């Protein structure tokens, strides 16, 4: 082992970097054995190992916040000089802590949420397997190792989406009987798992292609090895392969982070247990794509020093992010299922992060967008995990995934109500008090100040999506907690069910995250500045990307405590928040206007509503082109080719031909010596004739 530890008191912490991902795997490995001993014990073991893993990650923090790094390698495949390793630098350590602590909280939540499930051992196994794989992605020092983790989280995601593989009606998503373009918009867990797996695989194939292309030229998968020596990039660029290779890598991120056009799997992924949705499909795995961009983005940007401009790559990242942010936000406005609203919101928010990572590369001040994207990743992980867990509590209590089956719950579930407001305000970007505000504002500022030719359209999209975000969040809270009790709840209460708060192991985790959203939000600006400073140093030290301190002090019209912010971005944030929450209040909290009547009031709104509700017809079109049509083709081939040409023609025909010729040959075997002698003689003649020919 070669330890390149720079931090002073941290000689031993290379081990903790390894432990961060080894511990969860160890837990997964012993899980089946523990399940044999006692099912109750599995939960404690899982929580314990998740805590240890999170603590290992936390022990790396002091080193990373000093902008130092640990890079530790062991030989992996000797023959091609491939090394496995951990790279604990600021972004990976911060990410590892986000993953580690949120998964720890979600594990606690799961002990309540999954109580009594008879497949609980399998659940814990896959959860721990997931955490281990995710931490491999985060802490690996090379692309190939990342890919192993990448596939590991994909596998765990597949297994957990279809966790309730018996496909009971209550585990489906979508409205039963609803059709879009003639296809059912109603999915069973097993179908959803497969859909997620296949759609993300499209991205994975692109990713491995990009990886191998780079390896072909650079001869290494290592993140650090790719920086510094730029000969490989020059050679690739000369052949026009550099940007395609990185775009292919980004393809993996598109699939994993559910970005347009591979976004449709995330909605059906909501068939999994809510704890899974919170951990995998909101807080961590879907961020892997953003993290990958954060890993490779600086490498690409640093190539600018070698005279290679990769603007196209960053433009693609930014535009994909912006399109996704808007596309999915719109759908969040109309969906009746609470988890789906949150899923749309997740995809949309990740779009923001991608947008920030993209514009970072288009501006001269790379660190601005980079910090904004990463800061938004952290704040989103907190409030979205909290929202998901709260939604899980609601599902648990109400027994329905539809918001129309809830309503008026603010009295019975006071804690959930409060926490959901707190986390929801984070998502909306409530000014000055939530992390969501500061991080979104940073994204706006980064886009606005990037100086790219696309800055204005991207900025407009981002602001529009923010308005919509505030609106659908208010709608969600309004539908669930305000108004009258729904028929469903009334019926439940008539049947003697008492609607009550969720158990303590459930509300504490999302309570903590909701409080953190506000708590860190209060000191949000200094947090952001700290992060900005850290990344500045990190980018300079590891990639040689310099930042200019061009901010003009004191000339701003803003009050003292907001110094350093971009006034335009700040204004847009405030307006977006106010407009969104105002509209939401009118329709869903104050209930002054009936949204149904409003939509039906004119054909224009009606048409828009229908298009959005039908997922912009994107899902249906994907199904028509890539599922229905190939199946139709396959059936045709089966019926008109396999059944006829292959089965009747070749199989039966061949069998008959062989049988027939065997009969003929046997027919010559008369058993009569005279005829044998005749054949012998004829054969001799035949041989001599051929020879004489």
């Amino acid at each position, binding site marked *: 082992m070669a330890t390149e530890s720079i931090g002073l008191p941290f000689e031993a912490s290379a081990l903790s970097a390894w432990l961060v991902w080894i511990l969860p795997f160890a837990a997964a490995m012993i899980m089946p054995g523990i399940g044999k001993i006692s099912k109750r014990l599995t939960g404690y073991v899982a929580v314990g190992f998740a805590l240890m893993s999170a603590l290992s990650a936390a022990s790396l923090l002091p080193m990373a916040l000093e902008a130092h790094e640990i890079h530790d390698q062991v030989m992996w495949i000797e023959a091609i000089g491939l090394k496995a390793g951990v790279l604990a630098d600021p972004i990976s350590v911060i990410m590892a802590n986000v993953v580690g602590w949120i998964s720890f909280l979600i594990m606690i939540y799961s002990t309540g949420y999954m109580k009594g499930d008879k497949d609980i051992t399998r659940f814990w196994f896959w959860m721990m397997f997931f955490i281990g794989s995710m931490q491999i992605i985060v802490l690996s020092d090379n692309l190939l190792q990342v890919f192993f983790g990448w596939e590991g989280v994909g596998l765990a995601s597949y297994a957990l989406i279809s966790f309730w593989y018996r496909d009971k009606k209550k585990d489906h998503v979508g409205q039963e009987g609803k059709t879009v373009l003639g296809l059912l918009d109603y999915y069973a867990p097993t179908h959803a798992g497969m859909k997620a797996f296949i759609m993300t695989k499209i991205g994975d194939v692109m990713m491995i292609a990009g990886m191998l292309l780079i390896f072909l030229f650079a001869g290494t998968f290592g993140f650090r090895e790719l920086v510094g020596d730029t000969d490989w990039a020059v050679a690739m660029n000369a052949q026009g392969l550099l940007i395609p290779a990185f775009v292919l890598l980004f393809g993996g991120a598109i699939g994993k982070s559910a970005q347009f056009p591979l976004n449709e799997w995330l909605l059906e992924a909501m068939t999994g247990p809510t704890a899974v949705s919170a951990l995998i499909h909101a807080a961590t795995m879907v961020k892997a794509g953003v993290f990958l961009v954060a890993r490779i983005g600086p490498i690409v940007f640093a190539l600018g020093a070698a005279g290679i401009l990769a603007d196209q790559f960053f433009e693609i990242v930014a535009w994909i992010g912006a399109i996704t942010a808007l596309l999915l936000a719109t759908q969040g406005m109309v969906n009746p299922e609470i988890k789906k609203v949150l899923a749309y919101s997740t995809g949309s928010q990740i779009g923001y992060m991608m947008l920030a990572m993209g514009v970072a590369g288009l501006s001269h001040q790379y660190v601005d967008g980079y910090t904004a994207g990463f800061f938004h990743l952290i704040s989103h992980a907190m409030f979205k995990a909290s929202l998901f867990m709260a939604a899980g509590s609601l599902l648990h209590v109400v027994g329905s995934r539809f918001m129309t089956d809830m309503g008026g719950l603010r009295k019975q579930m006071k804690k959930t109500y409060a926490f959901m407001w707190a986390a929801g305000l984070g998502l909306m970007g409530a000014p000055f008090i939530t992390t969501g505000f500061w991080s979104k504002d940073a994204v706006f500022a980064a886009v606005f100040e990037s100086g790219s030719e696309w800055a204005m359209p991207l900025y407009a999209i981002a602001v529009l999506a923010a308005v919509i975000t505030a609106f659908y969040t208010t709608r969600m809270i309004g539908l669930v907690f305000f108004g009258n009790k729904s028929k469903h709840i009334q019926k439940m209460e008539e049947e003697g069910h008492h609607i009550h708060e969720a158990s303590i192991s459930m509300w504490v985790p999302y309570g903590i995250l909701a409080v953190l959203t506000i708590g860190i939000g209060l000191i949000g600006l200094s947090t952001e500045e700290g992060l900005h400073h850290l990344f500045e140093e990190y980018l300079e030290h590891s990639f040689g990307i310099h930042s200019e301190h061009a901010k003009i002090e004191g000339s701003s019209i803003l009050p003292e405590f907001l110094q350093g912010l971009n006034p335009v971005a700040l204004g847009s944030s405030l307006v977006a928040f106010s407009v969104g929450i105002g509209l939401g209040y009118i329709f869903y909290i104050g209930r002054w206007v009936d949204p149904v009547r409003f939509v039906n009031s004119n054909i224009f709104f009606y048409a828009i509503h229908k298009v959005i509700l039908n997922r912009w017809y994107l899902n249906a079109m994907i199904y028509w082109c890539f599922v229905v049509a190939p199946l139709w083709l396959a059936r045709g081939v089966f019926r008109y080719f396999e059944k006829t040409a292959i089965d009747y023609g070749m199989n039966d025909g061949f069998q008959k031909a*062989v*049988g027939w*010729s*065997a*009969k003929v*040959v*046997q027919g*010559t*075997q008369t*058993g009569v*010596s005279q*005829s*044998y*002698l005749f*054949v*012998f003689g*004829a*054969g*001799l003649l*035949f*041989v*001599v004739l*051929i*020879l*004489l020919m």
Partner: protein
Amino acid sequence: MLEITSTPLVLIAILGTVGVILPIISIARKEKGSNSFYAVIAFAALIVSMGYVGYQFLNDNVAPSALFSDDVIVDDAFGGFFAIAMLIVALFTTVGSFNYMRKHNSPAVYYSLILLATIGMVLVAYSTDLVMLFVAWELMSIPTYVLVGFMKKNPSSNEAALKYFLFGALSSAIIVYGIAISYGLTGSTNIGDVIEGYSTLDPSLLPLALLSVGMFIAGFGFKMGLVPFHQWLPDTYEGAPSPVTALLAAATKKAGFAAAIRIIVLGMVALNLDWTLALGIIAVMTMTVGNIAAIMQKNLSRMLAYSSVAHAGYILIGLAVAPYSSLGLQGSLYQIFNHAIMKGAAFIAIAGIVTTLAVTHIDKLKGLGRRMPITALGMIISLFALAGVPPLSGFWSKLMLFGSALDASSALWWAPWLAIAGVLNSALSLAYYGWITRKMYFEGETEKRVSEPKSIVAVMIFSIIFLVGFGVYPEPLLKFVEFATPIVSLGLMP
């Protein structure tokens, strides 16, 4: 002149002496000796012979394959190679007969005949003179006629012997005819002189030379089981006692190939004529007819008889492309050696099944994997090796054979088709090998294990070790084959 210690002479001495003495002992003891008593003596004689051949090889006393010699026999690696293969089969037959012949009379004569036939086969491979070859040929054939009909009271054994004898006589006559013509054309019976004479033949006499070659092909083709000279073969193999069938299929057939390589291939090269096509056509016909006929058979012996016909076709590929690819003859020799073990083991397995269960019909083999596990395993390994399934030894020889056909494709446009035909036929052959496997292992449920004859088990274990061992590690066998293969190329003169 050959030295007195040269391999063929010593073999004649050992096997001949024991072969002649056995009946004398029997008479002296008034035919009271048991089956196993004579079997052990024969076994010992064969082991000693085997040991001597091995000793000669290990001490480098064996000349590399000499193509020609002034003597009537030559002590070369080619002959030694065949001697080892045939001695192994003779050992198989002897061991396999321990139980099989227990209930029959005159064991001394039986084993004596096996030894005498073995001398004949070995000498065929060593012969470099046509007359010597013919004498050896007859020495090999006549005892086997008797052996096939050894069960006097069994009509199918008698029928088998009669058919075998009729065709044997006919083919011998044809060979003599061929020898006569070649002697007439060249004034010599030494193979080297004949071929030299042929290569300088007046063109007007060429058709006669070709006629003699045709006669040789037909005459030796009878033993090799080439289509259309194969029709006696299934009837004989089915009717003969199974150990004897092993001797016929695995050993005498190979003597036919040894003779064919000595005369036909070398002659072909010398004559510089394109008669490879004739061999190619016969090869394809042989393998196809053999496999197609085998596929519907219900009798195990008969099925393997046809499979043996098919294998003659594969081996012939190597002969056909010999002038154009150095791999050709190597592949043939390799396949000959493997085939001797595979077919020998398969027929001895049948002998075991017949002695224990008295069945040969395939439907009666249900659950054999449980009843006679070792026999069944030996059988399956042999069959899969015959089909050329890796990593068994049979795979490498087939690979080399088909490879040689591809190798020759630059000179012969039709050579790759031999490989294609061979591969397709191998696939076809898996149909009936698989059928047997299915019967033995996947059908029947309630069968109890029966005790397997120890001698059969010994043969099975030897073959399994051989086929798997040289399949996984083919290097030594490959070296041996390379050493034994005569090097021929176009335009080669004696």
